[in-house]
């Protein structure tokens, strides 16, 4: 890379949110004519950095330079006017209007009389699209096009705004393999036109195909920046997850030794398939076994968990409990079969903040606590008392709104909600995220105890230690496919990362059965 003046630069940018340091003195440089990968796991600070650059957030500290001059955009509109275009996952165009109208949205050419010059608009839009080899009828409404073409239109719009920087956030997440190739063609052309491209994706193979440089963020800090070619896939994964390759596994969690595992699986999931999301994931869980699901962001871990629980629509696939088929796509059916699911996002999918601790605990147990539609107060209060004591839930009373509790106590309420059903399989999606260290160890010990009592556990965690130390078996997912299974002494951070780096990666959507 020849070192020229960077077109876009963030210097020591810090951004705080209540209780979180989202960016901690992060610096970032983008040269004109380079494609720069920005990577990191959930909560690493990628989105925050993009939002600071594009003027959604003002940084608490640090500076943003564009074209060598310090800027502070008041809104994404300002940054776009200055020449930074952002293309989000969900395309922010107007589906009902024509392709040309979308390309020229907000700056439509006018005739001498101030009316819309549709003819000129269509002509110029066709020109712009043609330049990037995009074939589309410019007068057709946008929503008549495929997702991939729509994405191209968004990009065409961006470059026709004379963008000097284009930021792409997971641009390929909804594209077919063929469309990805086309997108890469457009990106290469942008690069040749000296446009700087920031490319955010968790598909590592794509990064190696299209990006020259990489910046890795972790927990709001800059951990690496440099040429992508100097970094092997394994090294990149290790950098993202924060592990030294040769690092000896210490013992950092509340998990104990392995569990005694039953022989026959209690849960069997077969070929869970959902276009673009899961490509034939199969999974067995035996009684007393903790199965860790490992993988990077977007690998399909949460989707697998939700699919087993019936909360993720599937194109095909089966779930069996104790040999009996469970109706997929229906959480009540899964619950009845003995499957429990602790969702990843406690605030938006778990707790019902305005309701009391009591009502939150019994939320899933309603059918069992009632007869003829009437809630049995006595049975309910007994249950609540028992589980508040067993899990050590600290609340002023069972009547306290759960939204007022600490994160750790909220998580225990969520666990109580499921444990009071006596499930056979407990699926935990990030069980210790966002809770303090003490509560974390407590939750981990609890998971251990539950497995000792014969519960089958599926555990998703972005923390490698948690997966490595807590699991009896680890299933490694990548791009919606199982790329490795580790058990016993094979379970180590190194082996997981190796599976992630080497594991086969089918092209997006290729086996979607079209």
């Amino acid at each position: 890379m020849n070192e020229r003046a960077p077109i876009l630069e963030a210097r020591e940018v810090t951004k705080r949110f209540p209780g979180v340091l989202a960016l901690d003195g992060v610096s970032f440089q983008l040269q004109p004519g380079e494609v720069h990968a920005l990577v990191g796991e959930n909560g690493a600070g990628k989105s925050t950095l993009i939002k600071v650059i594009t003027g959604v957030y003002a940084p608490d500290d640090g500076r943003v330079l564009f074209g060598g001059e310090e800027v502070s955009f008041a809104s994404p509109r300002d940054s776009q006017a200055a020449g930074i275009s952002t293309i989000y996952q969900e395309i922010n165009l107007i589906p009902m209007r024509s392709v040309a109208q979308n390309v020229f949205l907000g700056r439509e050419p006018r005739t001498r009389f101030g009316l819309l010059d549709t003819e000129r608009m269509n002509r110029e839009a066709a020109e712009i699209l043609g330049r990037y080899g995009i074939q589309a009828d410019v007068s057709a409404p946008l929503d008549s096009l495929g997702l991939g073409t729509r994405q191209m239109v968004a990009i065409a719009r961006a470059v026709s705004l004379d963008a000097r920087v284009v930021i792409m956030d997971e641009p390929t997440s909804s594209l077919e393999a063929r469309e990805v190739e086309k997108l890469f063609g457009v990106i290469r052309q942008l690069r040749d036109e000296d446009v700087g491209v920031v490319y955010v994706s968790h598909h590592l193979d794509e990064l190696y195909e299209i990006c020259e440089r990489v910046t890795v963020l972790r927990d709001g800090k800059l951990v690496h920046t440099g040429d992508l070619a100097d970094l092997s896939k394994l090294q990149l994964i290790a950098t993202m997850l924060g592990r030294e390759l040769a690092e000896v596994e210490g013992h950092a969690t509340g998990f104990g030794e392995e569990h005694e595992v039953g022989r026959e699986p209690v849960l069997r999931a077969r070929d869970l398939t959902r276009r673009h999301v899961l490509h034939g994931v199969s999974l067995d869980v035996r009684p007393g076994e903790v199965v860790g699901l490992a993988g990077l962001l977007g690998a399909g871990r949460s989707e697998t968990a939700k699919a087993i629980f019936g909360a993720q629509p599937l194109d095909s696939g089966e779930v069996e409990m104790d040999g009996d088929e469970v109706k997929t796509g229906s959480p009540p059916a899964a619950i009845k079969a003995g499957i429990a699911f602790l969702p990843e996002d406690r605030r938006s999918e778990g707790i019902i903040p305005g309701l009391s601790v009591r009502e939150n605990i019994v939320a899933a147990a309603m059918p069992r606590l009632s007869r003829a539609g009437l809630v049995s107060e006595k049975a309910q209060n007994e249950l609540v008392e028992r589980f508040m004591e067993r899990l050590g839930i600290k609340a002023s009373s069972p009547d306290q709104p759960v939204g007022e509790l600490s994160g750790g106590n909220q998580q225990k309420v969520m666990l109580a909600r499921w444990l009071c059903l006596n499930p056979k399989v407990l699926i935990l999606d990030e069980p210790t995220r966002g809770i303090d260290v003490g509560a974390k160890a407590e939750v981990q010990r609890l998971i251990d105890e539950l497995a000792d009592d014969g519960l089958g556990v599926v555990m998703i965690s972005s923390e490698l230690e948690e997966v490595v130390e807590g699991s009896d078996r680890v299933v490694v997912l990548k791009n919606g496919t199982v790329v490795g299974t580790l058990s016993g002494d094979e379970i180590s951070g190194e082996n997981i990362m190796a599976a992630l780096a080497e594991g086969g990666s089918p092209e997006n959507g290729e086996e979607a059965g079209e």
Partner: protein
Amino acid sequence: MSRATTEARPFEAGRILGWARDNGVYVAFALLVLFNAVFTTNFTTTATLFNLLIQVAPVLIVSLGMALVIGTEGIDLSVGSVMAIASAIVPLYIGYGWPVAVLIALVVGTLAGALNGSLVAFVGMQPIIATLALFVGGRGLAQVLVGGQLQIISDPSFLALGQAEVLGIPLPVIIAGVLALIVGFVVRRTTFGRYVLAIGGNRAASYLSGHPVRAVLVAVYAISAALATIAGVLATARLSAGDPSTIGILIELDAIAAVVVGGTPLSGGKVSVAGTVMGALVMQVITATFIMNDLPFTYAQILKAVIILIAVYIQRGRGSV
């Protein structure tokens, strides 16, 4: 002042606000009654009391259903039109006897409500839009049914529904009271009530707890429409005529106001049935106060608006705990 007091203040303010949120409507009601007892002649007579209660009965019944819908973070604009449909159906079928006529009205009304609920639950429409269609079209349909004319009803057993007294208490008041008790019981003691609150409190969490979210939503709108039908029947009996052009006009707004003033937040997840009853009473007493004192009615509207604003202001903090 010592430091301790200044530090305690925000906490105290929060407590007072919380208390006002839950009990403000009772205070308002007490103040209004007190004011009228002193200043309004003939206010403290049974005749006035029953008159007031008879007038509030339809609004109150509609408000009960509205409270359930609002509890799921929804809204039902169609209640007035459903009342009009009921008012049109009763005279059409009164020849078969009033129980048949009322039953048909109930079936039609409930189905219309279930349709509202299906649009919300299965199609994913916003409640305000889903119920707007029936709000606009329902009254028109009702007017077509009766040929655009007032239909006089003379069946005495039907008229008794709106005009008879039991133990000296007007029948509509008794019906409204019983319905309020039933809805209160449903909210407090049944699984259905819990589902309503859970859906309004956090729909995704409710779904992931295995709750029958869609079925409950359909049921809530069906119940709201069934209650509106009852209100429409009572109003028709009171009037001795089916009159879709006037019955239930603007009642959706009175009902929403009663619910909100009664301490049920529009953000869902909480339903106060007692508060809703009080809210409806407060609004009615305000109207009565102005009418009985020969004050221009316009000012009553302004006072109601102020009370609604205060109620919404007090509830504003909820959810951001």
